[in-house]
């Protein structure tokens, strides 16, 4: 008999209440296995190496089971959505606590072989796609939050492009989260040679909890530009896991910017499973107040000839705490691996802190791997230079911080519209700097 961790009981009850007998059997089996795993694992503690810098006290103190039914929550304000959305021709889905808001979503004519919609819809009309999304990604592994998500998810989105299909306009998903707990499950499946740009924006209000799992499966030669912008409420908890598997010569370009949430965590697990696959991560965390953010990319080179580049920058003000836990793992035989990982942090004032741990784990010899990490404040001479030219101290500071952070956005291959969109958010954040 396995021991059930006491803190998981409310979640077990939520699972029991939500069991839906109309769901396909394979999914119900997976959910049952996942909730059992969660009940055994419980919440991670600071004794777990991967979680030692993450303070989960709020979650463990007061349980936050999901609201049922999620659809009972009021629709987000249309004006707000209007102000957040990308300009131009976009295929848009608005999710309210992971349930789709049809009135605010807008489609454009998708080419044949493309499917884009909510998870609930996929379950009804294309369960095969959903099943494929589950089949290609790891089961919950040792990760309690992924297990909980698998047991409880009701919404999220799914994008599937058949081999050879490409779509020029971006797919935009606006996730609005309120006071409730929500467990969206998202999937991006690109067939051989397919290509797409996906822009996700997480926003909301209140002290909710968003526990997201996103599966990315890229076929041979597929190309994905994936942008995530997180501007959730300063009281929210945002835990996200992205799991990507790349086939031969696939390319995954990921940009992740975190501005919001009291506690946020980005676990980005990438498996380079086909030769010549390529992964790029440009990440940034911009923190103030009591915020705490963790970036934990884990890049696994399983086969020869792959390359990966990671650049994650942090700007930390207020009393905030930034954490970077990056790993590059090169498995035996993965020769000609070219991997680089960089983490740079700016501490803006006293009272801030950063923990960074860039890790290399190399079991092949013909490799080129490197990592670097820096922590410091702004360069005094650069500040002086600007001030000597008549720019006041506060503006000079903003200019330098903006320049430090802009790299991440400029390096994204997601297109000019999206880059400008991100730059706007960065400027807003900079303006609010004390």
């Amino acid at each position, binding site marked *: 008999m396995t021991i059930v961790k006491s803190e998981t009981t409310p979640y077990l009850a939520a699972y029991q209440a939500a069991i839906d007998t109309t769901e396909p059997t394979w999914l119900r089996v997976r959910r049952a296995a996942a909730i059992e795993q969660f009940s055994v694992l419980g919440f991670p503690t600071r004794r777990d*190496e991967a979680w030692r810098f993450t303070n989960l006290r709020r979650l463990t103190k007061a349980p936050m089971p999901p609201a049922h039914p999620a659809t009972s929550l009021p629709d987000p304000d249309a004006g707000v959505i209007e102000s957040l959305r990308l300009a131009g021709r976009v295929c848009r889905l608005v999710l309210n606590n992971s349930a789709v808001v049809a009135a605010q979503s807008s489609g454009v004519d998708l080419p044949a072989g493309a499917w884009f919609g909510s998870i609930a819809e996929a379950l009804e009309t294309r369960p095969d796609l959903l099943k494929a999304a589950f089949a290609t990604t790891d089961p919950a592994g040792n990760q309690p939050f992924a297990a909980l998500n698998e047991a409880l998810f009701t919404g999220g989105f799914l994008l599937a492009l058949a081999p050879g299909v490409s779509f020029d306009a971006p797919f935009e998903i606006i996730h609005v989260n309120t006071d409730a707990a929500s467990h969206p499950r998202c999937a991006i499946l690109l067939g051989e040679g397919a290509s797409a740009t996906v822009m996700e924006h997480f926003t909301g209000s209140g002290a909710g909890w968003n526990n997201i799992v996103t599966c990315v499966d890229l076929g041979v030669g597929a190309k994905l530009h994936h942008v995530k912008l997180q501007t959730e409420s300063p009281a929210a908890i945002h835990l996200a896991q992205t799991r990507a598997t790349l086939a031969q010569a696939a390319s995954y370009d990921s940009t992740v910017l975190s501005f919001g949430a009291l506690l946020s965590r980005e676990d980005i697990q990438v498996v380079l499973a086909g030769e010549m696959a390529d992964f790029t991560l440009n990440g940034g965390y911009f923190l103030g107040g009591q915020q705490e953010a963790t970036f934990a990319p884990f890049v696994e080179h399983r086969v020869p000839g792959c390359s990966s580049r990671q650049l994650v920058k942090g700007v930390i003000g207020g009393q905030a705490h930034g954490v970077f836990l990056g790993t590059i793992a090169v498995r*035996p*035989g993965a020769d000609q691996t070219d991997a680089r990982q960089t983490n740079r*942090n700016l*501490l*803006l*004032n*006293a*009272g*801030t*802190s*950063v*923990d*960074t*741990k*860039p*890790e*290399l*784990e*190399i*079991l*092949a*010899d*013909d*490799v*080129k*791997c*490197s*990592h*670097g*990490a*820096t*922590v*410091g*404040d702004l360069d005094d001479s650069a500040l002086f230079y600007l001030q000597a030219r008549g720019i006041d101290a506060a503006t000079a500071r903003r200019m330098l911080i903006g320049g430090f952070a802009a790299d991440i956005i400029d390096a994204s291959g997601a297109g000019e519209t999206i880059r400008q969109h991100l730059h706007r958010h960065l400027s807003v954040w900079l303006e609010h700097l004390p």
Partner: protein
Amino acid sequence: MSATLDTVETILAAGEDNYKYGFVTDIDVDELPPGLNEDTVRFISATKAEPAWLLEWRLKAFRRWQGMTAPDWAKLKIAPIDYQASTYYSAPKAASGPKSLDEIDPELLKTYEKLGIPLGERAALAGIAVDAVFDSVSVATTFKDTLAAQGIIFCSFGDAVREHPELVQKYLGSVVPPGDNFFSALNSAVFSDGSFAYIPPGIRCPMELSTYFRINAAKSGQFERTLLIADKGAYVSYLEGCTAPQRDENQLHAAVVELVAQEDAEIKYSTVQNWYPGDAEGKGGIYNFVTKRGACRGANAKIAWTQVETGSAITWKYPSCILEGENSVGEFYSVAITNHMQQADTGTKMIHIGRNTRSTIISKGISAGRGQNTYRGAVKILPGAENARNYTQCDSLLIGKTCGAHAIPYIDSRNPSARVEHEATASKVSDEQMFYCQQRGLTQEDALSLIVNGFCKEVLKELPMEFAVEAQKLLAVSLEGSVG
């Protein structure tokens, strides 16, 4: 001719028998039966006629240790260790302590001669004062009188307890408290000897101080304790070398080294660790679990650790610096080689407490055979460490397809004016470099040795001259059979 050159020649003469220190010296020893309990601790303390406070201190550590578990966070595969199977005290038999070199067992002297230790007359030529620790007990300290003339105390730990109890009591456990970790608690309970040095204010120690450790007896563990104090404005350079005979079973070595540097003092601590690494199949070898830490207590103090780790089946070792004093400096230079089945998890910890403290970490890891080499380091900047600076560079060289190299740095900064930089790379010995060397007539092994020595140069240049030569040769010997 210096004794160290002697060593080099011995290494060269070693031929295909890679571990030239693998001899066993057959001498009479006083030995405790294997096992560990409070009586063992009492016996060790009584044998050494220790004062009551020290026995109490040991017992307290032992009780702490009983409640602790061995750390498992390192990237090391360690078969469960039976702490009751080890012998905790083994001493060369002697009615009373040797008064001069002539009284030392000739067998012992021969052992040191084989090791190339400049004991006796040869010490004068080499200009190094040596304290040699054989199994658990310090057998001879040379140059004691010359040093004493300047007020420098350099003796075995046991002598220090007898002759300078006030110094020992003041500093013992002040840098590495007994409960710091599992192995330091074990060491605090059962340490049998080691070296002690005290450099009085303003004195620059005129010669290199040196300790040579050797584990000789079978199934015995060595738990030495080194305490080094450089008072205000003092300077000392300290060398430490280690060997052990070739045996099939694993032997335990759990040492504690504590350094205290007061205002304006400087301590340079160099180690060449060449414990028996086990054979190519991973049989036997020393388990080396060492806690080394230095505290820069006063302003402008400096502690530099340099280590060349070529031996041991398992190395678990993180020489660290606590930078308390303003402007104090910590340095760590390391070369670690793992060949065959060796595993090393080694690095450093720099804790910046005072203002304007600076630290430098240069680590070079070389993995060959099926060796696993991990750099694990921590740089901590506390809120008060205004303008602290750290620079870390950690490079790994991989030789062969079955070895592993890992880097796990922790950086924790709590002061915005501090600057921390970390950089790490991993790559293999380039085919072009090998080809270039071989084309010019070098054998494959010489070419590799040349490249590896170049890779380690930044660290080797930090070693005192004689040690650097020995270390270079050791690198070559350690890597024999790793290519082709």
